[in-house]
Structures are given as C-alpha cells and as structure tokens.
C-alpha cells in the first residue's frame, strides 16, 4: 500500500495528470468523429432492426461507462474511507456528475431505442430498474456530499452510500443473464465468455465509440480534479494574502 501514497501527493498528481491530460483529450477529440462516422454512416444496418440499431453505438458505451465510472467512484470512496486520502474523495466527487450523465444518456437512448424495437418506452424489468437506481445513487451521492456543514462528514456519508450501492453493479451486469430474472432487455452481446454476438462490421464502430467515451471520461475527470486542486490553492493563497494584508494594516498603528 506504500505505492498508493505516492499518488496521494497533490503535486505529483498535478504533474502526472498534466502529462496524461493532453493525450487523453487528443484521443477523445480524434475518436469521437471517427467513431460517429463509422457508427452512423459507415456501418451496415441490422438484419432485424434496420437503421434503429445505430442507437446501440451511443447507448452501449454509455452503459459501460456508467458502470465503469460507478466502480471507480466506489473504489475511490473505499480508499478515502480507509486511508483517508483527500485526493480519493476529490476523485469520487469529480466522477459523480460525469457518471450521472453517462447513466442518463444510457436511460434516454435506451428508451428511444425501446419504443421502435420492443414497442415500449419503459418497462420495470430487472435491467432497466437497476440502471435507474444507479442513476439515483449518483444523484444521491452528489446531494449527500453537500448536505453537511462539515465537508469531511459529507464526504464520509456519501462515500458509504456509494460503497453500499455498489451491490447494484453486479446486479445490473448480470440481471439479463440470470435466467430466473427474465427481462425484456436481451442478454450480453459483447462482454461474455463466448465470442461476441455482434458482427465484426458493427463491433469495430462500437469499440471505437467505447474508446472515445473512455478517453472523454478520463479527460473530463482530470480537468475536474485539476481545477478543483487549483481552486483550493487559489483559495489558500488568497487567505494568506488577506492575513498578511490585515497584519500589515495593524502594524503601523502600533506606537
């Protein structure tokens, strides 16, 4: 666990993230247009769903990133609770709105996709319901984090909420594959033990889009964390300046 402490140093984090950020943002900026072109224009329609299948390229990576960002947030909260690293709390706090957006994109595109294919905007099956709960967990985290006067208390309460809510991650992942929990949502197509049941010509655009989402997530996370650290530094510099100024203002009045 010694290695972990090296990353807890804000200066080291600023240096490291400053190196990663340009690369991550370049990858995001390049892969998004390429992925969208491949997905929306240059990929074949599905044999059954025809053009509607293109929603998959937006929906599926958003769902993956929603689960991934929640897992990262839970891991960061656990590190914060156990080793009391302020940077881990900052990471979890920075992930929350991004993850909530991914979940919302997943829910909205899923609904738009469900109407033409399944014939319904929304059903309360195990998959859809558990993803909705994931969205509430993200929002609940953000609300709870700011609900206390003492920020460390807020971080701790919100961290516990996220870790408890982590039970939903495996539920979401496996809800469609546990045969007893029959769902309207179909089973996994890509992340399963056998070969993916998405044809090559559609799998590649999907994976490029997934890379774009991931690079975008990393860039946004680093920007949010870096700006929060810089804002804290500016605040403490201003405080020091103000203290110095007030001391200077008092001194001349002394006899």
């Amino acid at each position, binding site marked *: 666990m010694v290695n972990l402490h090296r990353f807890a140093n804000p200066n080291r984090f600023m240096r490291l993230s400053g190196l990663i950020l340009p690369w991550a943002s370049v990858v995001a900026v390049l892969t998004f247009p390429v992925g969208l072109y491949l997905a929306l224009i240059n990929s074949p329609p599905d044999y059954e769903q025809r053009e509607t299948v293109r929603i998959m390229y937006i929906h599926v990576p958003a769902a993956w990133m929603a689960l991934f960002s929640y897992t990262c947030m839970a891991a960061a909260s656990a590190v914060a609770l156990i080793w009391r690293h302020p940077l881990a709390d900052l990471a979890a706090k920075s992930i929350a709105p991004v993850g909530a957006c991914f979940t919302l994109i997943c829910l909205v595109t899923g609904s738009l996709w469900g109407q033409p*294919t399944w014939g319904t905007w929304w059903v309360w099956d195990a998959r859809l319901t558990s993803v909705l709960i994931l969205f509430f967990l993200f929002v609940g985290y953000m609300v709870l984090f700011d609900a206390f006067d003492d920020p460390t208390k807020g971080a701790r309460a919100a961290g516990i909420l996220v*870790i408890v809510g982590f039970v939903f991650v495996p539920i979401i992942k496996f809800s469609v594959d546990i045969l007893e929990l029959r769902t309207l949502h*179909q089973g996994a*197509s890509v992340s399963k033990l056998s070969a993916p049941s998405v*044809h090559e010509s559609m799998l590649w655009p999907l994976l490029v889009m997934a890379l774009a989402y991931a690079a975008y997530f990393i860039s946004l996370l680093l920007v949010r964390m870096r700006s929060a650290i810089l804002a804290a530094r500016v605040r403490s510099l201003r405080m020091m300046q103000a203290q110095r100024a007030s001391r200077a203002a008092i001194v001349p009045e002394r006899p």
Partner: protein
Amino acid sequence: MTRKKRRLYTLIGAMVLLSAATALVIGAFRDNLVFFFSPTEVAEKGIEVGQRIRMGGLVEEDSVIRDADGLTVHFRLTDLSHTIMVTYRGILPSLFREGQGVIVQGQLDAPTHFIADEIMAKHDENYMPPEVAEALKKSGQWKGGNE
C-alpha cells in the same frame, strides 16, 4: 492492528455481509422480480381468469391470424411445452412476427385464452448486417428461431 487495517477489515466484512444479504433478498423475491411468466407457468401456477399478468414466449409459426378490421390479431404463444391463444387489438411492434419472442400484457379470459392490451417484442443479443444473416441462413448455420 492499525486503525487503517481495522477500517479496511470492517469495510470488507460489511461488503461481504451486504452482498450475502442482497443475494438472499434477490433469491427470496425472485418470483416478484420475474418480468413475465411462461405459458407453462401460467398453466401450472393456477393464474386466475381476470388477473393482470405478463406472459412471454414465442409466436408459434403459422398461427397469426389478422381480422378484417386490420387491427385485431390472434396468435398462439408457446414455450414449446404449453401453448396459449392470444388476442390483441392495436399496433404491433415492428419486430413482431412468427417465431419471434414476445411479451404480452393483459389477462386470461379463459384458461387457455389471453386478451392482451400491450405487446412487446423481445430482441435477442445478435447483431449482424442483413447479408450476413442471409449467408448464415443459406449455409444452414442459422441459430435464430426465425424462418
């Protein structure tokens, strides 16, 4: 034992208990978490006439009959061991066809006749271009239920 170690073990212990509790809850409520019954379950569980349920299965081949009004459709829903006749009036989802998995929502009006007020088509996890589907069908490697 340092405080950090103690917090680590507490958290791990809490997560283990929580996962066990979740697994038990899901196991206990499985019947309520199930989104639909199969025709066999409808026959065996003694679902009463008039009770609102969802039932899922395959639309039997050559069983779809459309009425002259163009809206009402009759078909047999099967899980290959039991079959229930379904009547539905309304717009069908575009994936609805013979051999397709569907979920019907409504009620029984006789032990083997179901009146649906909503039909949802289930989609499988296979995605491929039409040409590939065509080629698979031609070479006899088609695994889907259609055609």
